[in-house]
């Protein structure tokens, strides 16, 4: 009895693993067939949150590796001031806030995507960045500054690819028209700013409240002493 149970458990784990590997591999299809790819990624459950998160982490690692190991000819990174956790957070937080902002708006305007769908699509859209710019870190160390044309073209190409994928991804996730997607991309930025504003207000009020209670406690403590 227990043997079969553990067997089924391990096979379930194996299934999960296989699904993860499959969804990782599926990125290749998304990159080259974004319209089909993003549709199936979300609506046919070809993607997994785990794979999406893996790609996000890879993206963050790429950024940090870039800062640390790109040859100085191609990057102005004041290494003496760089904190890699700060760098990672400064990418991760805007990313999540943008996802959240997009979700907040599109749920109100009949977007089909759930938050997890948006997150997944955005993460998969970052794959070209990792795919191209990580090798470019190595390339930057074997070319001289005046041979940089090749390097810069690839850099901008990878960014343009990412932007295009974000656009198509959101379009397919929400089942929007291109025009509507474009408008919502812009509005998403505004929404993100609003969220940041609210967060700042919240934390500053929280701080004020904390100081209020602390001073109240002090006052009472003094009186009683």
């Amino acid at each position, binding site marked *: 009895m227990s043997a079969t149970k553990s067997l089924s458990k391990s096979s379930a784990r194996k299934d999960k693993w296989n699904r993860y590997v499959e969804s990782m591999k599926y990125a290749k299809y998304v990159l080259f067939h974004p319209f089909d790819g993003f549709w199936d990624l979300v609506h046919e459950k070809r993607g997994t949150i785990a794979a999406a998160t893996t790609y996000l982490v890879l993206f963050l690692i790429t950024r940090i590796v870039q800062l640390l190991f790109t040859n*100085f000819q191609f990057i102005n990174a*004041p290494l003496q001031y760089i904190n890699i956790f700060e760098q990672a957070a400064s990418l991760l937080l805007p990313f999540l806030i943008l996802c959240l902002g997009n979700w907040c708006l599109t749920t109100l305007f009949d977007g089909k995507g759930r938050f997890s769908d948006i997150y997944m699509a955005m993460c998969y859209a970052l794959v070209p960045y990792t795919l191209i710019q990580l090798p470019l870190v190595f390339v930057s160390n074997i070319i*001289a500054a005046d041979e940089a044309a090749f390097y810069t073209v690839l850099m901008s190409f990878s960014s343009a690819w990412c932007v295009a994928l974000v656009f198509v991804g959101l379009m397919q996730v929400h089942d929007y028209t291109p025009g509507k997607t474009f408008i919502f991309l812009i509005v998403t930025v505004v929404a993100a700013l609003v969220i940041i504003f609210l967060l700042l207000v919240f934390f500053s009020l929280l701080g004020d409240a904390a100081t209020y209670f602390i001073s109240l406690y002090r006052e009472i403590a003094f009186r009683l002493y």
Partner: protein
Amino acid sequence: MTVKVMHRLLALIMTVIMFASINVNTAQAADDGYPTTYTYNYDYWGDVRESADAYRVDQVIYGAELGLETLMKKPQSMFVRNRDVYVCDTNNNRILHLTRSEDNVFSLVRIIDTIQGCEPATFNQPYDVYVDESENIYVADTYNGRVVMVDKDLNFIQDYTKPSDATFDQSLSFMPAKLVVDVSGRVFVLATNVNKGLVKFEADGSFTGFVGANKVTYNFFDYIWKMYFSTKEQRAQQESFVPTEYANIYMDKDSFIYATNTTFDEYDLLWDAAQPIRRLNGIGNDILIKNDRYPPIGDLYWIEASVTLGPSKLVDITVLDENEIYVALDQTRGRLFGYDSQGIMLWAFGTTGNSDGTFNSAIAIDHMGNDLLVLDQNEGSITVFTPTEYGNLIYDASAAYLKGDYDGSAEKWEDVLKMNANYNLAFIGIGRALMRQEHFVEAMEYFEMAHDRENYGRAFRLYRKIWVEENILWMVIVLVAVMIIPLVRRSIKKMRMEVEAYERNQVSK
């Protein structure tokens, strides 16, 4: 009660500690009482890096020491020819001729206040003086509206007055403020209220036009506002967009005019649109070389000790004889900035104050050899700076490099690094010497420390070429292996499958 005593004791201990720490701080300051930031430089990131002093005060000369009966009053300009110094003592309407003896004593030679053979024979607030190779003296006699040229015995030769040419606005009075003279006797005059550029006279005194007008600068929004949202009357009231005048001019030994500019929109400095220092060629174009990350604008930061002083106000400039190093003078902070011919800052030093080596209102700078002389208009003093060992090493190193003695230059730079490990030029200089000796890896290290991309790229390509030549065998082997191994593996697989199929056939038969 005991609590109170405890508090008092604590407070006492705290004060003692504080005083102790203050004492430690003063002990760290230089012996002459300057803060250690008297001399500094900017690193690649634009951070201030304190450095050893490049110049030290040799002496400060006041009128009283020269035996003057009336002290200098608002002197506006100073000119050095060999060991003679000519000071334009503007508000006393005279020129002071000083000389520096071999044993380094400045003494008064004569007071020039009258000239022979012309009318008027005296000056009226002269703003500038120039002395050519044959010791003819040119004086910008500002409020007499003339530039007057006299020989060394003060006999009148000729004067340059308001041009009667149509290109010169006849409603303006001609007020020459600064002048320079080139080797063939052409006179370039910077005149107040003339914004078409420098007024140029030929050697015979004839006016031949303007040189090097400042470009008209205006703000985009100002323009829109003026052109579309103002009435005709308002437009007439507003100031018109006109080119600004230069603040000062200097002629180097190759007859290029260095000009400084103090009127600009301070945010234009950030993208080098203001160009406070220019080097004008014959047709008036700016040909100053700017190879540093930051253009030569003086100080990069305009706030000091939470006081906003604004950008550097570069009121005068001088160019050293041998190495095209130019030194600009900032009046706001009483500070000198040295740049080499590539526009890289060598050092900056000086401040406002009352002690020697600080200024109240510095107005003019000139050089005598590598010594720098700075005139202060409010103090009526001339401060003489001589280069320190550190400053001389920098000059020697760049001079050696210009001469082609690269190894000698590298040795000098090594010595500079011993005194200032933050000196980028030294890293570049050593890197270049190493590159010439074909030590490419070391050269690359030095260039990387100086963030010199161009030279790094050069060294790197040479290094890469050698590396590839040495390792070409391995690279070919790896490449071939990468191509052949999968092929071999595939054919083995194929053969195995054929054998299996054959065996299966045999069995089924």
